[in-house]
C-alpha cells in the first residue's frame, strides 16, 4: 500500500556531497541569500510589501512557522506520499510544499481568524470591526487584529511541537494520517485557545477605553507578580517554551526525558519539564537585564519598562534557537563522540556562545541591512521577526528540500533503520541511572550552581566592557 510521508524524516539519510564544512557553508550562504531577498520582498520597511509594520509581518512569520510544523510534525507530509517525497527533486518539492504551507496560512488568517472568529466570535480579530470603534485608525485596527492573531500563534507554536516532542503524539500515535494529524491539531488548537483566553485575552480587553471589565479580567491577575498589566509577561514564558521544545528536540535529542522508562511518566514529565525549564530561562533572562541595565521601573517605556523587559526575554530566547537549529540541521548535531549528556552539554555551551554573538551582531548591525530601528527597545524593533523568518527558511530547506544542494537524500534501508534503533537503545542504556554516576552528578550539580552565580557576577562587567550599539 502506498504510504504518506509518515516516518519520512526518520527514514531519510542525508548524504553530504562534499566534506564539512563546505555543505554547511553552502547551506548558510544560500539560505541567507533567500532570507535577504524574501525579507526585502515581504518585510523590509524599504522593500516591496513592507509587512514589517511590525505586527502584520510578525503574525504571518509566526503562523508560517506553525504551518510548517503542522505539515511535517503533525500531518507527516499528508497528503503527499512517501514515494513522491523520495523521488521529487528538492527544488520542485520545496516549491510545492512551501506554496501549500503559504496557501493554508492565508486561508487560516483571512478565513478562520478574520472571517470566522472576527465576525462570529471576537471582534478584535477582524480589523474591519475594530474600525467601527470611534477614534481607531485603520493602521491600528490592522495592528491590533494582527497582535491578537500572533499572540495565538505564540501559544500554538509551543503546543503544536510539544504534543509530538513531549507527548509523543499520545494517544493517537498509532493512528494513520490524516486522522492522527487532525486529532493532534484539534487537541493543540483547543489547548491553545484555553491558554489564549487565560493569558492574552485580558491584554486585548484593556486595549480599549474604558477597560472591558465584563468580557475580560481587568486588571489582569498577573499584574502584581509581573509588575505590569501587559500580556508580554506571557509572551515571554511562552516564547521560552517554544525555544525549549526545539532545544530538547534538536541539540538535546529529547534528553533527559527519554531516560524515563515508564511511557506515561516520560510524556507527562517531558511536557511539564519543558515548561519548567522555560520558566527558569524566562526568569533568568529577565534577571540578566536587571543586572546589566538596572531594575525595571513600572510605568516607564522602552528598555526600563517591565513589559518590554518581558518581551525582550522572548527576543533573547529566540537567539538561542537559531544556532541550535543550525547545529542540528547543517552540522550533524556535532559533537557526537562523547556520551549523550556530555554531547548535550557541549552543544548547549556552543549554542549559548553563538546566541550571545548573534545577539551582539544583530543589535550592532541589523539596522544597516534589515531596515529595522537602531537600539534595543524600540517598540517596532522585533528581532523575533527576522530570526523566525530565517528559521522558517531553514525548516523549509531542511524538511522540504533535504538540505539541497549540500546534501543528497537517500532512503535508509531497513537494516540502517534497525541499526539506528539499536544505537539509540544502547545510548540510553549507557546513561540510565547507576551509582557510578553519583559523584559526577553531585559535583556537576554544584558546578552548575556555581557557574550560575559566576555568570551573575560577570554579567554587569561584561556588558559594560562592550559597546553593542554605536
Amino acid at each position, binding site marked *: 500500500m502506498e504510504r504518506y510521508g509518515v516516518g519520512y524524516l526518520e527514514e531519510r539519510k542525508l548524504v553530504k556531497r562534499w566534506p564539512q564544512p563546505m555543505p554547511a557553508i553552502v547551506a548558510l550562504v544560500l539560505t541567507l541569500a533567500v532570507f535577504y531577498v524574501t525579507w526585502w520582498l515581504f518585510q523590509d*520597511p524599504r522593500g516591496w510589501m513592507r509587512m514589517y509594520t*511590525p505586527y502584520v509581518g510578525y503574525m504571518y512569520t509566526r503562523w508560517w512557522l506553525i504551518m510548517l510544523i503542522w505539515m511535517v510534525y503533525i500531518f507527516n507530509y499528508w497528503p503527499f506520499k512517501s514515494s513522491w517525497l523520495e523521488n521529487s527533486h528538492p527544488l520542485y518539492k520545496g516549491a510545492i510544499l512551501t506554496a501549500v504551507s503559504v496557501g493554508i496560512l492565508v486561508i487560516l488568517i483571512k478565513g478562520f481568524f478574520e472571517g470566522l472568529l472576527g465576525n462570529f466570535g471576537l471582534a478584535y480579530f477582524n480589523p474591519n470591526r475594530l474600525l467601527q470603534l470611534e477614534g481607531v485608525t485603520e493602521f491600528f485596527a490592522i495592528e491590533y487584529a494582527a497582535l491578537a492573531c500572533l499572540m495565538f500563534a505564540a501559544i500554538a507554536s509551543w503546543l503544536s511541537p510539544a504534543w509530538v516532542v513531549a507527548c509523543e503524539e499520545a494517544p493517537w500515535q498509532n493512528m494513520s494520517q490524516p486522522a492522527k494529524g487532525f486529532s493532534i491539531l484539534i487537541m493543540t488548537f483547543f489547548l491553545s485557545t484555553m491558554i489564549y483566553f487565560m493569558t492574552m485575552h485580558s491584554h486585548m480587553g484593556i486595549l480599549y477605553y474604558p477597560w472591558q471589565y465584563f468580557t475580560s479580567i481587568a486588571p489582569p491577575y498577573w499584574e502584581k507578580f509581573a509588575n505590569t498589566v501587559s500580556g508580554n509577561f506571557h509572551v515571554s514564558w511562552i516564547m521560552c517554551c517554544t525555544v525549549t521544545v526545539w532545544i530538547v528536540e534538536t541539540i538535546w535529542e529529547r534528553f533527559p526525558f527519554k531516560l524515563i522508562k515508564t511511557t506515561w511518566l516520560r510524556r507527562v514529565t517531558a511536557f511539564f519539564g519543558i515548561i519548567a525549564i522555560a520558566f527558569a530561562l524566562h526568569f533568568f533572562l529577565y534577571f540578566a537585564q536587571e543586572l546589566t541595565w538596572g531594575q525595571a521601573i513600572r510605568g*516607564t517605556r522602552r528598555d526600563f519598562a517591565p513589559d518590554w523587559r518581558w518581551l525582550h526575554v522572548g527576543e533573547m530566547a529566540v537567539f538561542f534557537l537559531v544556532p541550535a537549529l543550525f547545529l542540528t540541521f547543517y552540522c550533524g548535531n556535532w559533537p557526537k563522540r562523547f556520551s549523550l549528556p556530555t554531547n548535550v552539554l557541549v552543544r548547549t555551551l556552543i549554542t549559548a556562545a553563538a546566541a550571545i554573538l548573534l545577539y551582539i551582531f544583530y543589535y550592532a548591525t541589523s539596522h544597516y541591512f534589515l531596515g529595522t530601528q537602531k537600539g534595543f527597545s524600540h517598540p517596532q524593533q522585533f528581532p523575533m521577526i527576522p530570526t523566525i523568518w530565517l528559521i522558517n527558511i531553514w525548516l523549509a530547506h531542511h524538511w522540504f528540500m533535504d538540505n539541497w544542494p549540500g546534501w543528497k537524500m537517500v532512503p535508509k534501508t531497513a537494516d540502517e533503520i534497525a541499526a539506528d534503533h539499536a544505537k539509540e537503545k544502547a545510548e540510553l542504556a549507557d546513561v540510565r541511572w547507576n551509582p557510578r554516576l553519583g559523584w559526577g552528578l553531585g559535583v556537576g550539580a554544584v558546578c552548575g550552581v556555581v557557574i550560575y552565580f559566576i555568570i551573575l557576577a560577570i554579567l554587569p562587567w561584561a556588558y559594560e566592557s562592550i559597546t553593542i550599539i554605536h
Partner: protein
Amino acid sequence: MSENKNTINRRDFFKGAAMGALGGSVLAMGVYSYSPWRKAQFPPVKRKMVDIGACKYVKITNISETSWFNNADLMNDIKGAGGLLVDQYLYNWPPFGDGTGLGKGSYEKGIAKIKHLLPNDVDEAWDITEKLSVHPENAGGYACLIEMEEMNGKQHKYLLDSGWSYKWTHECFKREGIDEMLKNREIEALFISHEHFDHYWGIPVTFKYDPNIPIYIPDTFYPEGLQYLKDSGHTGEVIKVKPGLKPIVPGFATYVFPIPIICRVYGEQSMYFNVKDHGLVSVTGCCHQSIIQFAETAYQEIKYENDELYGVYGGLHVSPFEDWDPKYDDLVLSLGKYDFKKIGCNHCTGIVCAKKFAEAGHPIVKGTARYRSKEDVYLGNSDRIGFGIEV
C-alpha cells in the same frame, strides 16, 4: 559485579557531571532569578546630585501642540508607506514632497524644489511643496515658548521646537508674537527636542526671523537632518548635545536620551528647570523616553528644590495616534507615586490618556480647546502654564 558497579571511571564521572551541571544551572536559574533574594545583587542607587542652580519661575506658552490635524490621514500615510519604521524623509510629506507619491520621496529630491526660497520666502516655499506633497493640509507642528528668570533677576526666552508646516507655524508664530521676538533677538536659542517632522521640519520659519539664532540639537541627528539646517539658511552656532546632562544657565539644563524613535529618528533632548521653593519642572517635546524615566533620571543625576518633582509640560508620548497598549496603563497606574503637583500635558500624550490621567486623580491642567486643539482635557494651542508664577 557489585565492585564494577561502584567503580568510577572518567567517562562515568563526566557523564554524571554533565547531567548535574545542566540540572544544577537550570535549577539555580529557576529558583533564584526572580526571587526576592536576587535583589541583593543590585547595587544601591547612587545619586550624583549635580547642582544645576535654581530659577525663580518658568512660564510656558503653547505655540502649537497640534502636530497634525487628522490621525486617520497620518496613519494611513504611515501604513501606505510601509509602517512606523519607514524613514520619515521617504514619506513624501511636506516640505520634502517631490511629486512622486507616498513612500517614494527623499530628502535630496524634496529640498531641491524649495531650497532657493529658504529661509526668507517660507510662504512661497510652502505653496510649492503643497502641490508636490502627500497630505500637506494635515501638517501642523509642535513648538512652545519658554520664559524663565534666574535668581539674580535675569530673564531668558527660549524656543522649544519649531513646528512642521511652514504655513501653520508661521500663523502660530504671528499669533503669539514669536516673529517679533525673534526679529528683536529676544529669544536666545532654539532647542530641538528630536528630529521628527512635526518638531523639526518647520525650522525655516524660525530662521526667517533670526537666521543666526543658536540651536541646540541632540548629537544623534541623521545626515539629512544636519543638512536641512544648512539648507534652511541657518547661520548661527549649532550645539550638538551629547547624551547626558547639559547645564545651560543657572536653574536650567537639558538632557539627551539616546533612544530609538519611530520613522527612523534617534535621540531626544528634554529640559529640567529647578524652580526655587517648588521643585523640579520637566519640559519635553515628545518625551519618548517616558515621563517616569525622565523623573528617575533627574532623581539619579541632579539636585533639586525640596527633592520634589513639581511639574511637567509637553508631550508625554503615550498615545499620539489615540492607540492604546496595556503598558500605558502601567503609566496611568504608577504616575501617582511621583507626586507631581502640576501636569501640563498635551500633543502626543493623547486625549484618551489625558482622560485616564484625570480619572486616576493626577493633577492635569485643563486647556481652552482653541485654535484647532480638539478638547479642553489638556493644555491646547495658545494656553499658558506657569511654575513658580501664576499666569
